[in-house]
């Protein structure tokens, strides 16, 4: 095997090796987001987003129709603003309800969209008015205990 063939193979090896390191850093470690899929944006404001994460699925009737693209806090109303990217061929009515749900006890958090009966559709950048916040289990348990206690107090 002559020298230039060896150089070529070593070059290929080093290139794909560094390619693998880049893959681990960019795609797995998420140093940069490279994927830009087509679709349109919808916005929804929630009182509490719970454990919602970037790229969490947006589901309608359990079918994934989009992804969460950005999450930030509205500095005035202290609501969480969630921007979703929805597939281009799926349209939602203006009275759609967005709710934050969890699949299973340990499963991931997703946004569920329930379309209403309105005839006007939401366009790019449209805002979903009716939202239902994430259920925080600790609060729920606290409320339950509080109710129990006050019930017991009332009976006495």
């Amino acid at each position, binding site marked *: 095997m002559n020298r230039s063939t060896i150089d070529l193979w*070593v070059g290929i*090896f080093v290139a794909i090796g560094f390619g693998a390191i880049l893959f*681990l850093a960019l*795609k797995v470690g998420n140093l940069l987001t490279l994927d830009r899929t087509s679709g349109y944006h919808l916005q929804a404001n929630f009182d509490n987003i719970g454990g919602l*994460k970037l790229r969490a699925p947006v589901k309608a009737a359990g079918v*994934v129709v989009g992804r969460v693209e950005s999450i930030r806090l509205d500095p005035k109303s202290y609501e969480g603003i969630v921007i979703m990217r929805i597939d281009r061929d799926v349209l939602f009515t203006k009275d759609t309800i967005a709710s934050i749900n969890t699949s299973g006890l*340990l499963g991931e958090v997703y946004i569920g969209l329930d379309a209403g009966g309105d005839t006007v559709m939401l366009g790019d950048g449209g805002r979903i008015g009716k939202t239902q916040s994430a259920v925080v289990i600790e609060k729920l348990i606290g409320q339950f205990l509080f109710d129990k206690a006050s019930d017991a107090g009332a009976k006495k």
Partner: protein
Amino acid sequence: MSTPKSGEALDELSQGLRRLGGAVTGGIAWIGYAARFLTAVIWHSPAAFRRLHLTLREIYFSGVLSLVIILTSGLFVGMVLSLQGYEVLVRYGADEQLGILVALSLVKELGPVLAGLLFASRAGSAITAEIGLMKATEQLSAMEMMAVDPIARVVAPRFWAGVISMPLLAALFSALGIFGAYLIGVRVLGVDAGAFWGQMQAGVKVWPDVTNGIIKSLVFGTAVSLIAVLDGYDAKPTAEGVSSATTRTVVVSSLAILALDFVLTVFMFRGVGS
């Protein structure tokens, strides 16, 4: 006034103690020899790098020719991890976490360790056998005779080729493993692709997770290469000596990888939530 019997027992005892002492001092002397050897290799490295084609040739032999075994092993390890992980996770309805499970175990642990073990048995043994045979056929002495330093000409290029190849091979192992996990998890078992990548990206940090894996593979590469060239250089110049040196390379470097892995993991361990 001791009877001959008790004298014999005393002799046996002192002989045993002497053997133990010999083994301990021999081991310590070996560590010193290895350190001296490593210094010599690094000292002669500039001469080796001036003739880069020697190192490139060795990268070809230990890196490029190890690609097939590393890539197929990575793919299959990833696919198996995916199947096994899915089986447990799906019981808790947490099968979306498959991506982070597979990625973290490959990037932090299995990639560097398994690639290191494969590298030790595929390339390390070949390096030892080659250098040992060179010594047995007196090629190394002939080089010294011609005023060519065998450490600069033979040992340093092989050492550096291992140090350079190992992190690249480990990264390829992890990348192919994640791809294999994707094939099984997403394509076959039907885990949501967005959740697979999304959970992975949320859970795996470039610093420290990916960098720790690269540091581990660099350390393993250095250890395996040093053990391989040292065993070859130190081999008895007989057929038997070369064969036992080759075996020792695989055994010692495998143990070194596992022990170093534990030490490095202890240093990199962050505990819960930090």
